[in-house]
């Protein structure tokens, strides 16, 4: 049943989000600490292993794969709802600060990738 896949995905996101908020509260941060990342790990743990019986069920697969296929369209809708006008009219400080942060990360990326050793 397709809904099983959707429900498993939903449960992972909810558990991950609650866990992320609990971690945030525990360390005194007013933010969700990695809730989506935790949810991804949960989903991988449930469905990502070769011997997973859940992942072998076509219904479960189709429920999860539908949303994975909707990822790009959702990202396009997200882009269309960004506050681009505010970002571009915010003045030089914000624009240069944002650009500088990206530039530094770009310089560091190849160095750290080498450390990560590919992993293809």
């Amino acid at each position: 049943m397709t809904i099983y896949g959707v429900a498993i995905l939903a449960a992972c996101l909810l558990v991950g989000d609650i866990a992320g908020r609990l971690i945030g509260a525990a360390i005194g941060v007013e933010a969700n600490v990695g809730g989506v990342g935790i949810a991804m790990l949960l989903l991988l743990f449930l469905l990502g292993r070769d011997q997973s019986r859940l992942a072998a069920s076509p219904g479960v697969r189709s429920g999860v794969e539908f949303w994975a296929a909707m990822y790009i369209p959702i990202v396009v809708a997200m882009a269309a709802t960004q506050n681009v006008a505010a970002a571009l009219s915010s003045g030089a400080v914000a624009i240069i600060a944002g650009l500088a942060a990206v530039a530094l990360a770009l310089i560091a990326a190849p160095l750290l990738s080498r450390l990560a050793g590919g992993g293809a």
Partner: protein
Amino acid sequence: MIADIVAHSLRAYSLIFAFAIVGAVIWLSYGASNLFTKGRIHGSAIAIAAGLVAAYVSGRMTGGPKGLADFPALAGFGVMGGAMLRDFAIVSTAFGADLATLRKVGPAGALSIVIGVGLSLVAGAVIAVAFGYKDAVSIVTIGAGAATYIVGPVTGAALGATSDVIALSVAAGLVKAIVVMIGTPLWASRIGLNNPGAAIVYGGLMGTTSGVAAGLAATDPKLAPYGAMSATFYTGVGCLVAPSVFYLVVRLLTGEA
């Protein structure tokens, strides 16, 4: 009369309308990709860029903060592109990810988050100082905005920054997200962003979940889960470090401590 009926339908089914429009935009974008660039510029990159342009034009027309979603008939874009469905879709992409790879490059990913947060805070803070900000609260808040547009206001609120500085920090984070969305496919090959390990490091260094999610979608969707995974931990680390350790360091440097 007909216009009223159509408008009523589009408002009543706003999310469905958004599905239809996004589908058409993606179809046109993939067509344009094949026709004009022989597929060299990814269709999704064109669609995302079109979305950003539409968001800019809408913002100018409506004066609102939500891009296309500020038009009542296009409010469905706010649901489709909002945090709820975005996070749901991001989590679903993990299904295709490889657990062994994650385990292998996990430590490098964690390190890249810490380095990424540090670099962004310093970059933003240096720019703030260069533009004449002298108090630690403003400097740190703008630095936090250069991390992500969530770290900025969370930090600013915690430290009691003024509302115009908080607005600047949000704007800095937005600029970062947009630059990463558009730029990632352009510089991906130059920085070796073509394998899961590099994607994890990239997500950790950039940290903007929306920027990385869209940037990797436009580069190679297979890399998206790896980058998104590390990026989602970045905001938490930023919210932890910026108002605490980083604020104390900046206070020492400004002589307020």
